[in-house]
């Protein structure tokens, strides 16, 4: 199978969907020259009408996407997670609430592409992994892919989805390569991955590790290391957090009896917290050990690299947590 770089998988998805559907357009800051790489070549192919550089006015263009989607367009907005705070009112009061509040009269097929840059000395203002805050807000679909194929397949699904979707794109994965099936090798001629279906990356029998976004490669590495010690770890990537594939997680815990959750978000009220709560409520009798969360420390991201590296989940922390559930 051909290999694709994560950020290029975003590009392929955008390109294919823009070719397929004229109502898809993209907007954001400096996207014509693609400073982050995901929109390369799209201006040349689709022109100025469908590739828009916006003023630095997140609240305005996040909201404009809602309005455009309400009257028939399919906007895709590029931003970084950290700039979503500026647009919070439009995201929450309009994007998330409009459809429900107006009795379902309108569909809002907007995609917000929010890149999470962290781990590289960007400090507190530019390192947000904020998906749990948006999981808390009804009305938003939340996607957090961990490899290029999922990125492409889920992005295409997001663009076709009739609701507001936030794609949390993990910047620590941007340069990663992975196999992405060529369209001609696919039964339907295209890669579409449904929302709400988890991906089991490794099967195992002793401990379940549910890992999110940039934690997934660490979880897989941990599982490989533990295999050598005779510990069999099942690694599950939920891929979409809203909707969440509870059934796959519960079935895995039923098999293994042990659960570790790796999540790059801050640990309080994280995605890991929510998954732990679901398993405690609905899978309690399967558990043979307390659930362990490996999430980011409850502190802002410090600039100094010696401190920053202490914050996030790592392979080592996951290995320790897995061993802890077996102790």
């Amino acid at each position: 199978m051909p290999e694709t770089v994560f950020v290029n998988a975003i590009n392929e998805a955008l390109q294919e969907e823009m070719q397929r559907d004229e109502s898809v357009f993209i907007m954001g800051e400096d996207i014509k020259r693609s400073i982050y790489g995901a929109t390369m070549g799209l201006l040349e192919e689709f022109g100025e009408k469908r590739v828009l550089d916006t003023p630095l006015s997140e609240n305005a263009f996040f909201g404009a996407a809602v309005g455009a989607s309400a009257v028939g367009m399919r906007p895709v907005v590029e931003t970084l997670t950290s700039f979503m705070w500026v647009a919070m009112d439009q995201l929450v009061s309009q994007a998330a609430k409009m459809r429900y509040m107006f009795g379902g009269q309108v569909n809002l097929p907007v995609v917000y592409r929010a890149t999470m840059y962290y781990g590289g000395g960007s400090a507190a203002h530019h390192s947000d992994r904020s998906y749990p805050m948006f999981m808390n807000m009804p009305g938003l679909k939340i996607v957090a892919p961990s490899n290029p194929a999922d990125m492409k397949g889920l992005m295409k699904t997001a663009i076709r989805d009739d609701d507001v979707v936030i794609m949390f794109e993990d910047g620590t994965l941007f340069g990663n390569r992975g196999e992405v099936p060529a369209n001609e090798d696919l039964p339907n001629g295209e890669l579409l991955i449904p929302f709400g279906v988890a991906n089991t990356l490794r099967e195992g029998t002793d401990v379940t590790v549910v890992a999110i976004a940039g934690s997934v490669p660490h979880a897989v590495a941990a599982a490989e290391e533990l295999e050598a010690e005779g510990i069999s770890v099942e690694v599950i990537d939920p891929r979409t957090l809203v909707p969440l594939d509870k059934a796959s997680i519960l079935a895995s815990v039923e098999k293994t009896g042990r659960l570790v959750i790796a999540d790059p978000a801050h640990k309080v009220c994280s995605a890991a917290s929510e998954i732990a709560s679901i398993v405690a409520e609905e899978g309690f009798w399967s558990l043979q050990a307390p659930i362990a969360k490996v999430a980011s420390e409850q502190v802002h991201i410090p600039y100094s690299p010696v401190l920053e590296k202490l914050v996030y989940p790592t392979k080592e922390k996951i290995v320790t947590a897995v061993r802890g559930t077996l102790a």
Partner: protein
Amino acid sequence: MALDKDLLMLMLRRMWTIRHFEETVIDIYAKGEFGGAAHPYIGEEAVAVGACVAMQDTDYIAGNHRSHGHPLAKGGDPKGAMAELLGRVDGYCKGKGGSMHLADFSIGILGESGILGSSLPVATGAALASKIKGEDFISAVFFGDGASNQGACHESMNLASVWKLPIIFICENNQYAVTTSYRDTVAVEHVSDRASAYNMPGVLVDGQDVVAMYEAVSVAIERARAGEGPSLVEGLTYRYEEHSLGLGRIRRGEYRPEDEIETWRQRDPIVIHTNRLVEQGIATQEECDAVNAEVRGEIDEALEFARNSPFPEPEELFDDMFANAIPQP
């Protein structure tokens, strides 16, 4: 306005401080001594320096991501700034903030913010405090042409005007936001044209001329201290380097013509000021060169200091989250 020699030489010194600081930063970044983003202020020195030397130590400033020039212009110690960039304990913020978040509260710096537009409300609040307390300090905030399009920017200017707050809004119009020309995003000819919408004076200033900046900001400060409210001062300037270190994807000349860059390089604020000092017989070329050389030495010392400062200890990770620490969850 006839300005005294000490003040004019201070302007020169502070501009050289920023220039040498930034050149050193570019050099050590290329050597991999620190990471993340860093936004050089080279070419724009006259804007912050002209504005800050018009202020008192007790006045406040706030700034943005292009953050090294503002504290240095206000007299901040380059040692603490450099140590912060290297993530060391002797940095202004003990290594927690880095390049985009330099803040030395001891000299009235409310902090540089990486989120565009977000420091305007904060600076507005400092001006509000001055008014409520009946003191005569003012505040000033630096922001770019790009950030001028943020809602927070409009809201702050309106609020400051209706409440007649002692604040100076200083737009550093370097004509681009990353790759985007302000002509494509700002609906008026100049950002300062918007002042009429907030019923405050708006002036367009040659941002390469430190004395012109000083004079315009001085008028605004006088107005502010007299309780007459805010002003908007736009310094038209140019950034000589690329938007940010570590953003290699943007190729030089791709979004701004080479000859435009060259034209603006010909209007170097340090050269303009030095020539004026010499031509008007205020200082000799040797005196000016001596300032340059002295500052070069200070920046070398700052780098030495920063390199020798230790990294924070792991135990410091949770320090300073709250005034009184609470247990970690």
